[in-house]
């Protein structure tokens, strides 16, 4: 305000002085302070913290401070050093060489070497993690020429590989604890041992999880915090109260109902950030059961896209946080391209398309996501939108287990979902549209039953094209085809804002947010 007036009156010198003062303040503000305790919410309570085995959201958020990957990713998805200090990729894209940080130790004091990395990649994660099995299909060998070097030889160039080495896909686990044991039943799963900045001190089930700093942490001077406490508070309104009364200083994205966010964000000294979801890039959409009439007709599916008022959904249900989806790839993910056709709200066109398709007014079943109020209301908006173009809808509510059962058994007409895209279209997007992923009994594949040989070929070529430019061409083509066919109804690119006390700095440093940043976090006095 002051600066504005000064500039308008032409006193440029004053403006410059003010700017200089501001930058000075910022620099003194950015000297990290050691010590302190950070109180966060974790919702729901994680079933376990051994993230090499259990990979749900809450486990990853807490476990990300205990385990690390070879790399981590900036908020624009560029790889940066974590346990790997540097790396080289051969010109043909077939050899990846990683040089590890020197003198890394696990939280039990034992050294971490290239052998641990090989064991993790080759033995451990291939047994426990479906996501990693998929990556390893493209890898010929993992070797450790010396204690500080790991070499991956690929069967073919595989672009997504460089974005698959984060803590949530490939956390490095200690060979000395797991070698020769039944990984899933190892008692150490209760007392996780990793290389991360913090280690588990106490877990009072149903109350809180307490982490203390890892005294052996490799990064000099880090972490700044002494202690991190995750509070388990099962009721959404009580979580909001905990933040208001100051018991909890951070509400990670998704901790409170959406309609509470604007109110809480207005609080004194409260900061809001939408960052930290770039890797997951959650995209919400509705599966349209392509197997049965009338949704087997692409015209009916296009009509649904035109019938949905997605701008209104964004504004009313999500308070404007997020973005209207423009296709199968989220706009923060590499190789996204905004191509036609785009579907804006046009009920008239929707009615015409339904008429052309000869839709007979048969009522459809709609399965909402059982994730709280916002999703329930969302289903009601969709019901109204579709009713307005002459498509009657019945909402069938169920709990989480029931939802998984119904979708994975294809027992629905229209079903809400949202999925993470995991840093690359080959990892998080292809699985929803290629024919080989039509498998009953699994809620994370081509549940809608869309099958198009052209799309299958484009996705499989794009995954292994060596040159990013070639990959881009193929992905642009696949986006055009999918957007014309509408296998599913894309809704919104979701945003889960994080609310926190403004005295907390460096809370979100990576594309994985609070789960992968606390080693850098500090609290101003």
């Amino acid at each position: 305000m002051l600066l504005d007036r000064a500039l308008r009156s032409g006193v440029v010198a004053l403006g410059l002085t003010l700017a200089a003062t501001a930058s000075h303040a910022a620099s003194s503000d950015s000297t990290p302070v050691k010590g302190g305790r950070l109180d966060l919410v974790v919702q729901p309570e994680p079933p376990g913290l051994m993230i090499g085995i259990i990979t749900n959201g809450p486990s990853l958020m807490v476990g990300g401070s205990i385990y690390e990957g070879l790399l981590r990713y900036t908020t624009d998805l560029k790889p940066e050093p974590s346990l790997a200090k540097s790396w080289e990729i051969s010109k043909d894209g077939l050899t990846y060489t990683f040089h590890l940080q020197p003198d890394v130790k696990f939280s039990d004091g034992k050294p971490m070497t290239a052998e641990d990395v090989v064991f993790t990649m080759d033995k451990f994660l291939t047994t426990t993690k479906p996501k990693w099995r998929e990556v390893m299909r493209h890898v010929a060998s993992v070797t450790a020429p010396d204690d500080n070097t790991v070499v991956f030889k690929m069967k073919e160039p595989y672009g997504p590989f460089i974005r698959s080495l984060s803590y949530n896909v490939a956390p490095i686990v200690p060979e000395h604890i797991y070698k020769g044991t039944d990984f899933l039943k190892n008692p150490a799963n209760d007392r996780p041992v990793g290389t991360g900045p913090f280690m588990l001190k106490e877990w009072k089930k149903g109350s809180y999880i307490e982490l203390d700093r890892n005294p052996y942490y490799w990064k000099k001077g880090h972490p700044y915090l002494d202690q991190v406490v995750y509070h388990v508070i099962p009721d959404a309104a009580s979580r909001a109260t905990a933040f208001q009364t100051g018991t909890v200083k951070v509400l990670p994205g998704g901790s409170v109902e959406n309609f509470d966010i604007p109110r809480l964000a207005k609080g004194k000294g409260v900061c809001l950030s939408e960052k930290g979801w770039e890797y997951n890039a959650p995209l919400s959409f509705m599966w349209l059961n392509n197997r049965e009439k009338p949704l087997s007709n692409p015209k009916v599916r296009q009509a649904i896209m035109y019938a949905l008022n997605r701008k209104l959904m964004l504004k009313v249900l999500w308070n404007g946080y997020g973005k209207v989806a423009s296709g199968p790839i989220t706009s923060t993910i590499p190789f996204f391209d905004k191509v036609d056709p785009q579907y804006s709200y046009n009920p008239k066109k929707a009615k015409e398309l339904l008429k052309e398709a000869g839709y007979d007014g048969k009522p459809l079943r709609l399965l909402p996501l059982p994730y709280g109020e916002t999703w329930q209301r969302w289903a009601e908006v969709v019901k109204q939108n579709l009713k307005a173009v002459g498509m009657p809808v019945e909402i069938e509510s169920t709990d989480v287990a029931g939802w998984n059962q119904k979708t994975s058994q294809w027992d629905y007409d229209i079903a809400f979902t949202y999925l993470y895209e995991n840093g690359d279209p080959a990892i998080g997007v292809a699985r929803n549209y290629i024919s080989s992923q039509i498998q009953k009994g699994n809620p994370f594949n081509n549940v809608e039953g869309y099958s198009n040989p052209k799309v299958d070929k484009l996705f499989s070529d794009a995954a292994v094209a060596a040159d990013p430019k070639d990959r881009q061409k193929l992905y642009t083509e696949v986006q055009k085809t999918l957007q014309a066919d509408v296998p599913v109804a894309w809704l919104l690119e979701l945003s889960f804002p994080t609310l926190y006390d403004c005295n907390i700095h460096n809370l979100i440093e990576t594309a994985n947010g609070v789960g992968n940043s606390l080693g850098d976090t500090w609290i101003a006095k």
Partner: protein
Amino acid sequence: MLRFLLGRLVKIVLILLAITVLNFCLIHMAPGDPALVMAGEAGDADPKFLAQLRTQFGLDQPFYVQLWAYVSHVLMGDLGYSYRQQMPVSTLILQRLPATLILSITAFALSLGLGVLAGVVAAARQGRWSDSLISAVALLFYATPLFWMALMAVLLFSVQLDWLPAFGYEQAASGLHGLARAFDIARHLVLPATTLGLFFMATYVRITRASMLEVNRLDFVKTARAKGLKPSVIQRRHVLRNAILPVVTLAGLHAGQLVGGAVLIETVFAWPGIGRLMFEALQSRDYNTLLGVFVVSSALVLLFNLITDILYRIVDPRIRAS
């Protein structure tokens, strides 16, 4: 007495067995299974992953094999293992039991004590304004939804007045010990115990009042009055002792119910009790934990019924004769 006890104990074991089998069948009829839920939360799965989980949970066995394995383990006192929580079910339940017992015993004592006292007062002042006031207040607490009362109590006493902690069993990672910790837990106990207690209190008020008035009209009370006994002695020795039986019945039922946990109160106040353990196990289809909680809480309900029956015999010797 001994024969009575033995007979009841045999019955209790049989009922418990029937409940266990019934619960097992009901839970397995619910849609979805723990493997699907875990895969669902991971946001990622392949057939190998699901098969691996189902083998680990023993879900690949035929239904009757699973049922037999479970029942035979329970009979030997083994509640099984929670693969979701990576812990024996008995450990999980024992971790949560103290919080539940503290909350329910406090709420129970509060509701019974205040409820009977208010009921006696209301009956003694039948038709006067204090009677109407007590009835109105009791009805208000009874009719208000429990979760709403809890939220309002938090808003008033924690957010506005900042007198009491809003949620939790104790301060997280506080490092408190001994008396300081006990005091901390007591402070956290006030709101949940009062909210829960006031709800149950209402029924005791109404039952005590009605029962007192009924007994007041009986002949032996007239006789006592005719003898010239003081009204307070009549109320205490003659009326209350006879009027208390229905209250004991109700209290026995409530006691069992309370030990099974109070899901709503535990959820709103983030109280780490059995009720939440059960609710979360239900949502994640953590069969062993859910069944374990059912077995323990039904055993406790049966036990409290037995205690109630014994109490009857002490309070009213006439029951022994029949």
